[in-house]
């Protein structure tokens, strides 16, 4: 009894000390971010989220409008051979522009960031960049792809890639983040061979080893690509 009481008192004191430590840490963590800065940043984040919602709503609207136009054109084409001829030509060009879904043999490429902290320099070389995606898409087209989609975003003749650290923007966005899934339809053997070539994608392969980025490739007999749901407006260019 005489020995047990000091022991339990010491235990309680130790636990109380730990609680105090954690409470202090908690308060410190909260004080680290000045409320003004957090407020400003939260306002910016809200702006991004609002813009993303508008972006998604606009895409849905575009998809619906294209569907309605297609139906109206089909109706008109059923009454005129000239219209039907034009519609067939447009359908072919729409397919090549990525405005209609495409399916067939192909490959799926999964690209993911290396684990956090795997680049001790803090330069984010463990993160997937838009250049990585650009290089992969170019390689796929060069090796026989007839259509490509990046995380559900169909590539068109006007497509471009941009972004900042760890963020990939295809055309009109919104930003995509790791893991990125690239699906291509076309010459499956050609694409698999190009992706398996150790001399292709030098930057990615080096960072795969150094920073554990992951690059997974899988061929499939039937891949599906969605239609492009963004804008193909080109107001500054006209026929010569």
């Amino acid at each position, binding site marked *: 009894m005489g020995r047990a009481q000091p022991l339990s008192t010491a235990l*309680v004191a130790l636990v109380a000390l730990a609680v105090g430590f954690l409470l202090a840490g908690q308060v410190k963590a909260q004080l680290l971010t000045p409320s003004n800065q957090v407020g400003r940043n939260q306002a910016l984040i809200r702006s991004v989220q609002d813009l993303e919602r508008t972006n998604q709503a606009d895409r849905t609207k575009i998809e619906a409008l294209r569907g309605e136009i297609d139906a109206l054109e089909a109706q008109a084409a059923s009454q005129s051979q000239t219209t039907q001829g034009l519609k067939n030509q447009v359908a072919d060009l729409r397919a090549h522009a990525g405005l209609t879904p495409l399916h067939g043999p192909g490959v799926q490429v999964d690209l993911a960031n290396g684990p956090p902290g795997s680049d001790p320099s803090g330069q984010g070389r463990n993160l997937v960049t838009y250049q990585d995606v650009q290089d992969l898409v170019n390689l796929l087209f060069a090796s026989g792809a007839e259509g490509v989609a990046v995380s559900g975003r169909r590539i068109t003749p006007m497509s471009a890639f941009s972004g900042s650290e760890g963020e990939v923007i295809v055309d009109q966005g919104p930003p995509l983040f790791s893991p990125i899934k690239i699906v291509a339809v076309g010459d499956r053997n050609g694409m698999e061979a190009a992706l398996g070539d150790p001399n292709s994608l030098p930057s990615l392969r080096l960072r795969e080893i150094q920073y554990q980025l992951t690059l997974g490739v899988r061929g499939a007999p039937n891949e599906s690509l969605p239609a492009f749901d963004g804008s193909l407006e080109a107001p500054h260019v006209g*026929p010569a």
Partner: protein
Amino acid sequence: MSARPSSRRPRQRSRTSAGPVAVWLIALLVALVATVQLRSQAEVEKSLVQADPATLAFSIDQLSRSNDQLEAQINDLTQRRTKLQSGGSSAADQALQAELDQLRILEGLVPVHGPGVVLVIDASGLTALDLQDALNNLAAGGSEALAVNDRRVVAGVPIVQTAGGVTVGGTLTPPPWTIVAIGDTNRLAETAEAMTQQLRSDRRVRQATYRVESDIVIRAVITERPFVYGVP
């Protein structure tokens, strides 16, 4: 004697059971606070990452411009739908012909013209990846039609590094590269300025210049490849 132990036992039992209960309660409290602490730190880290002002500013700028483009596309499609709803076959023919012309431009199947920039890059040792980067930067910077050394380029035209040098659409295209981009000249000039500045700091580059022109003609066209594997 016997009463003392019996009278002490309950007291002793209550003390021995209250001790562990208190310790367990405190341990529970510690665990609770530790959990809150860890979650709070994770949240702080997460929000700090998200709150990178440069990333947020870039996203806002990009999304605002994108949404403007999407709005323009919605307006165009809405007009097209209205025209189709109001007319019969002739309205449909007009709408289809307009789309046909537009898609031929976008896919690089016809010669085009418009305002833009002309970049000249003279270098030795630049690779296909350098050319792809340059063309992608211009495409992301507002280009609507592109050509390199009179070869038309759209996304999907293979730009490949071969033993003989860089090929564009299967044709050897050695530097100097004259890149023509038609589009919004304000945005394109801004992009070209940044590109040429960066290129001049590259030891492989002898010359990197650009000029803005009010009307550029791209006569080169792409031959459409039919689908062999894909089914629309």
